[in-house]
């Protein structure tokens, strides 16, 4: 099912959580809402679920206006950040809850519910946990139960609020892949909220980047990473080095360019040499080297301005150059980017 969010705004007291946000969630896709805290992403998710009511704007579910539809009638599955599992119910009872409260409407017998829930738990290989209480589960298991509980009522959309937020790094990785696989298997429209750019870029089909109640950019992970719409998106998606305006390469100034535009480059887009390669080469001194794993991270100090730069090289490349701490060299920024200067880092 596709969802159309049209011109939605929401205020909490004096705080504007969402300002005129429009967004189309395509049927069957896995969409990430990415942004820093306070950017309005969770509010947007809760409005889609019917947990909050927008001050203005409308929601279209599969071509029908669902703005006024009650949460319980939206056929939306919601996975809460802290899972919101019913503490006094077993895993089985938690998963069965949605079906059992609608038992009469759905015309199901208790036995049918038990069978359905049993099948579902088996599908996700959690049947052995059926009689446990939430307090007896690990964080990753709780997260899975919360998702399975949401799926049990066969929703048309699943909404996940920071699904990996409370988990440690290893479990996060496993769970990410698990959710991606599950999504590919059942082809459900899914929207998840995250503040972790790696997570969004790794898991989602498309990423919506939000900031201060507005959408900054929507696109596939490649699009937003390679062609960021503005400085906010660029800096939010990875580490950044700043080259102040007067040192930016000549001739590459943007149209607003009176020569003072700042230029940006990611650490892995900086090339390091012993000798000057070109006019644009910038003299540096190596101030710190951290060589852990396949990537070597260097902190470089510009000899001309004293600004600090960050560079990332492969181990092989670093060995070729062999610059140690305190030695001088040159860098050439590849792929310098310019943004209109109404954003600040």
């Amino acid at each position, binding site marked *: 099912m596709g969802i159309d969010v049209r011109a939605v705004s929401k205020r909490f007291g004096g705080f504007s959580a969402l300002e005129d946000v429009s967004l189309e969630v395509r049927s069957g896709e896995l969409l990430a809402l990415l942004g820093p805290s306070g950017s309005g992403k969770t509010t947007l998710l809760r409005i889609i*679920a*019917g*947990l909050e009511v927008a001050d203005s704007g409308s929601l279209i579910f599969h071509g029908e206006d669902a703005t006024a539809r009650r*949460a*319980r*009638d*939206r056929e*939306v*599955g*919601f996975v*809460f950040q*802290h899972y*919101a*599992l*019913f*503490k*006094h119910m077993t895993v089985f009872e938690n998963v069965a*809850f*949605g079906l059992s*409260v*609608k038992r009469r409407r759905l015309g199901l017998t208790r036995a049918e519910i038990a069978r359905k829930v049993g099948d579902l738990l088996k599908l996700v290989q959690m049947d052995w946990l059926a009689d446990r*209480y*939430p*307090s*007896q589960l690990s964080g990753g298991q709780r997260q899975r139960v919360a998702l399975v*509980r*949401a799926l049990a*009522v066969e929703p048309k959309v699943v909404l996940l609020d920071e699904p990996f937020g409370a988990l440690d790094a290893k479990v996060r990785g496993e769970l990410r892949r698990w959710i991606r696989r599950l999504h590919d298997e059942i082809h459900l429209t899914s929207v998840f909220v995250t503040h972790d750019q790696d997570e969004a870029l790794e898991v989602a089909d498309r990423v919506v980047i939000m900031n201060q109640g507005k959408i900054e950019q929507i696109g596939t992970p490649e699009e937003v990473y390679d062609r960021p719409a503005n400085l906010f998106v660029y800096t939010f998606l990875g580490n950044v080095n700043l080259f102040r305006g007067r040192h930016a390469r000549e001739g590459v100034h943007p149209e607003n360019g009176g020569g003072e535009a700042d230029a940006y480059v990611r650490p892995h887009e900086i090339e390091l040499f012993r000798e000057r390669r070109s006019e644009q080469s910038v003299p540096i001194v190596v101030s710190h080297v951290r060589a852990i794993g396949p990537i070597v991270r260097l902190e470089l100090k510009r000899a001309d301005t004293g600004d600090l730069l960050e560079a990332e090289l492969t181990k092989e490349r670093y060995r070729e150059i062999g610059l140690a701490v305190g030695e001088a060299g040159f860098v050439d920024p590849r792929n310098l980017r310019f943004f209109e200067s109404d954003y600040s880092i």
Partner: protein
Amino acid sequence: MIEQALRAEPARRSEATDERPVVRGALIVVALLFVAVFLVLPLLVVFGQAFAKGVVFYARAIEEPDSLAAIRLTLVTAFAAVSLNLVFGVLAAWTIAKFRFFGRSVLVTVIDLPFAISPVVSGLVFVLLFGAQGWLGGWLSAHDIRIVFAPPGIVLATVFVTFPFVARELIPVMQALGNEEEEAAIVLGASGLQTFFRVTLPNVKWGLMYGIVICNARAMGEFGAVSVVSGHVRGLTDTIPLQVEILYNGYSFTAAFAMASLLAFLAIATLVVKSLVEWRLSRESKDGN
């Protein structure tokens, strides 16, 4: 009020932030002495005096017709007051804990009022409303309805005095739990009543239980308010505390303490339930998250 954290053992403290053993010992001794004089001794006196003339005398004192009538009236009154305040307390807690609305803090303060009002004043308001000289007195006597100096007045005064207890226990528990589980239930398709009975109620059951128990203890033990509206019609409008007063003022000390010991047992039982509830809550909060 229930404090979940109170069951926690005092943590071992580092040398730098602990008192010297002498100071520590002195503080403990003074605190325990105060507790002994003001809490333990009165309790011992009640039971000591109640059984001063033996178990047979004790049993006979309680089997007095007036005493039995007082016990009966106390039970009926407490049942009525607890039931009324239970329904109110649950609805008030739901309103206050789950919603933000204009006038919310005023409502919270108003519910606390009976804590601050003298029990004598609480009884008086009903005499002034329903008594022979009261605003509705004429109408009531014309229709031959007795409220003051009769059991209905006792129930009303008790309801007034014990009014906040269930609500006050439930509000913090419900607030602490937040709305997430209820939201989850509703997104999963549960109706309002299903959400309340299947999600909210099981989560607050311990707080609710203590609310009922303390409300009951206060209802059974209420003295000031009830003594104003009772009129002391022997065997008809005397509750256990009033019977204690009558016996005591009539110099039947042992019998007075025998009746009093019933209420002291109730108080101890109430404290036991409170400790159990706190223990359960601290275990649950340790399990959860």
